[in-house]
């Protein structure tokens, strides 16, 4: 059965989230490169129960492997179940501890925060007054914030004036950013930590006809408006996760594991990895981040991105 096409399931919630579209792009690419089928199942929006069901019910399809996400641990029992039945599971994008999967491929949010801090220092110098916009209470925002503040404390004299909550929704983000401009007149730097923050920060300034080119503005992720604002010079830089890479590598790892000619499964860690209960995967695989700014922006705008199907 090594000949026949292998099928992998991407079972997750938030299937429709624009942030993950790049992830799906990477998967299409992998599918075309490795000649495998990849089936996406699961709810369009936020639905933990639906997520868990998607993973559990993917198992019933007996796939060659499952890729999933863990913004919350609801699917952990499903993952453990799949692994028990010999179906390799890889978690991408977001993860919780003790999840029982083969590996996690994605972003270390804390490090992403650190990278954001570095970018801020790069564009805004090592001193200033800072306001941070984010989706507070969401794990990635909180972790990024930790990394950001730790690095700034250690390596700069940036001080935090306050935080605003943008709920990762553009409408909210705009109004939150406006409140920020109206409240903290004396800030010299802005950081946005979730995918909507940048859009909010930039559009709010536009609405207030406020010139923020003087401010040091560093955000995260690559929503289309953010890229526009970088071109326009309102936002100085955005720190992005390599979402396409994480999904591509997930498939690549699964292929390497399943394909006897590559034989990752039998990498000589032990005489018999299965019997020994050895996981022939690195525990975590972090993508690290890239910084998008005026100089490299044109390579990131979605019009210039390829598509594979």
């Amino acid at each position, binding site marked *: 059965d090594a000949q026949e096409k292998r099928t992998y399931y991407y079972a997750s919630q938030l299937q429709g989230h624009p942030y993950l579209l790049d992830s799906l792009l990477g998967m299409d690419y992998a599918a075309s490169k490795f000649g495998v089928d990849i089936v996406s199942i699961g709810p*369009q*929006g936020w639905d933990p129960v639906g997520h868990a069901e998607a993973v559990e019910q993917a198992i019933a399809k007996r796939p060659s492997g499952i890729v999933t996400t863990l913004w919350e641990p609801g699917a952990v029992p499903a993952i453990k179940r799949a692994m028990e039945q010999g179906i390799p599971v890889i978690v991408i994008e977001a993860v919780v501890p003790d999840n029982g999967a083969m590996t996690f491929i994605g972003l270390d949010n804390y490090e992403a925060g650190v990278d954001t801090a570095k970018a801020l220092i790069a564009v805004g110098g090592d001193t200033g007054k800072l306001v941070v916009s984010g989706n507070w*209470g969401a794990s990635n925002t909180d972790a990024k914030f930790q990394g950001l503040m730790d690095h700034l404390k250690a390596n700069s004299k940036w001080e935090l004036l306050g935080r605003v*909550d943008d709920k990762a929704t553009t*409408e909210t983000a705009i*109004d939150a950013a406006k*409140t920020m401009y109206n409240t903290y007149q004396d800030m010299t730097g802005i950081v946005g930590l979730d995918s*909507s923050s940048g859009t909010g920060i930039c559009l709010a300034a536009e609405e207030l006809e406020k010139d923020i080119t003087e401010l040091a503005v560093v955000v995260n992720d690559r929503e289309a*408006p953010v890229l526009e604002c970088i071109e326009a010079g309102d936002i100085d830089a955005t720190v992005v996760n390599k979402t396409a890479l994480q999904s591509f590598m997930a498939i690549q790892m699964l292929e390497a594991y399943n394909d006897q000619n590559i034989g990752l499964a039998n990498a000589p860690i032990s005489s018999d990895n299965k019997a020994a209960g050895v996981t022939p995967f690195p525990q975590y695989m972090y993508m690290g981040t890239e910084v998008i700014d005026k100089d490299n922006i044109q390579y990131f705008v979605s019009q210039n991105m390829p598509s594979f199907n």
Partner: protein
Amino acid sequence: MTEATSMAVATSALAERGRRHLGPLPLLVVTAALCLFLGLTRENFFSASNLYSLVYGVSIECLAVFAFTYVMVLREIDLSVGAVYALAGVMSGYLLLEGVPMWGAITIALAAAALVGLINGLLVVRLRVNSLMLTIGTMLLVRGLVGVMTTTLRGNTFPRPFRALSREQLFGVNVSIVAMVVLAIAAILFQQRSVLFRHMCYIGENLRSAVIYGVRADRIKVMAFVASSFMAGVAGIYTASRITHADANMGLGMEFTMITAAVLGGASLYGGRGNAAASMLGLFLIAVLINGMAMYDIEPVFQQFVIGALLITTVAADTILKRRG
């Protein structure tokens, strides 16, 4: 009954009216108090820029809550507002990127929104189905369509001319603010004097009685649902132009904001009552609260706790005052 008593009838009528028309006063007091407090303790609160931002932010949702309130007056409910709001917004953007000229796209999007309302209305009056359950259905249905479009749009930004819409100014302020003011005044007049509103109250209070007295209940209900969807559509298109790209989260949970605002404004889930202008005030109160908490740099995750608490206290105050009167 004697002459004397019938005189008494006429006179004490006024007193009675006064008592019943306590109306949105509690809400007004709470809002004013909150504003005053913030104004006194935060130097930037009363800054023109902040107040303007607040009003502008609210003005868009006000368009939607206007008609939504009247649906509630009719003892019905329209939970599909949020989805329709997103539909109109995303659809107009979608059509634009498909190369449809701007006004054509907007017209089609609005028509689509109105169509949803028409379907809601017709099913409610024709099949006598429970509007809560029905509009949950249409909400999901429309959400799905929005999802389809956002997926194909891949979050791309909309053409400049469309984005310019939300920047349009009239009398030196954004169009949506003018619209809000006009609607608020219209609402007050409409509720004060108009036959139609009185008829709506009759329908909400006792449909059977209303029909016996020749009120066109079915037609009015359909109209209300269409209006609700249409206004949601207008607000949605305006927002789409404002946020410049297709956002799947657009209008998520908006229906609850609407209900909350309407109830804060004195509407009842059991129909017969409602005040669109006060509903707008309700939206404003919520906005001010969030604004204030940001200004106080309150731990963000704690903010929704405060919102919940305020929600309850305001309505509680209202309820208790009404019981007195």
